[in-house]
């Protein structure tokens, strides 16, 4: 039942990822940060992050760095997701459910348009 994951798989993944990166040239790095302090976790931040990773995986979105951070300091707005695209000021979203996270990915991270209704600071 255990599919053996091999070093060969990793080498192939690496080559494919590098090929894509060359084709893109400097597209402006995209970063998504999810607050993963105790309050964030209790409010569902792990499932929000899961939805983000699933979307990236399913839509095969390259060049997005996903990070977690400790308590951001907006307890009543958890789960918190921050989006940074290139040199532009970071946008902070609050009460980000998995569904809202997917919307933010589609419209902001991919589409370049901030999803205003969930912004708590920009």
């Amino acid at each position, binding site marked *: 039942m255990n599919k053996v994951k091999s070093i060969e798989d990793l080498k192939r993944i690496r080559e494919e990822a590098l090929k894509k990166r060359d084709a893109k040239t400097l597209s402006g790095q995209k970063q998504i940060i999810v607050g993963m302090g105790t309050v964030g976790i209790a409010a569902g931040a792990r499932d929000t992050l899961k939805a983000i990773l699933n979307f990236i995986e399913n839509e095969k979105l390259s060049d997005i760095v996903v990070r977690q951070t*400790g308590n951001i300091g907006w307890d009543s707005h958890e789960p918190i997701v921050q989006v940074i695209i290139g040199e532009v000021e970071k946008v902070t979203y609050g009460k980000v459910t998995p569904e809202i996270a997917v919307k933010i990915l589609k419209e902001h991270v991919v589409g370049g348009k901030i999803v205003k209704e969930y912004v708590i600071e920009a």
Partner: protein
Amino acid sequence: MRELALHLLDIAENSISAGSKNIRIEVIEDIQNDRLKMVVQDDGKGMDAETLATITDPFVTSRTTRKVGLGIPLLKAAAEACNGSLKIESASGKGTRVEVEFQRSHIDRMPLGDLVNTMMTLIIGSPEVHWRFKYQVNTETFEFDDEPIKEHLEGVPLSEPAVLSFIREYLEDGIAGIKPAAEY
């Protein structure tokens, strides 16, 4: 938090905040002896004896942005309600080891929950940490070490879609391969 895997995530977040370079997580289901044990061991900044003595007090936290930290005290209470315990060993500059144990079959024991999701969050979200994970059911074990993966990727980010699939499937297969059919 109604999942042990979420508490595991919370403890590991403390390890990350403590500046750990290496974090090892163990989940051990000993069905014969009816025990469920989770261990998080790090090499972060650790705590002095005074802080350690008060760490399970809900009104103590080393965080400065907010005054109340509830993660550890809540988990300790949950473990003690299930004939278990929570122990912390720590020394300044030497790291911290948190061990929590439950009576596995206890009616109030929280379900283990989504271990894959917790490990993915940690591995992808904090790639600067060297993560090791062990899941054991009786004598069968699944071990995961992210260092060889990072070495072979040579700088390709872990959040690349193909890498996400690789790590997720590796964890899913490894855990599902030994997970007991029934939670209790």
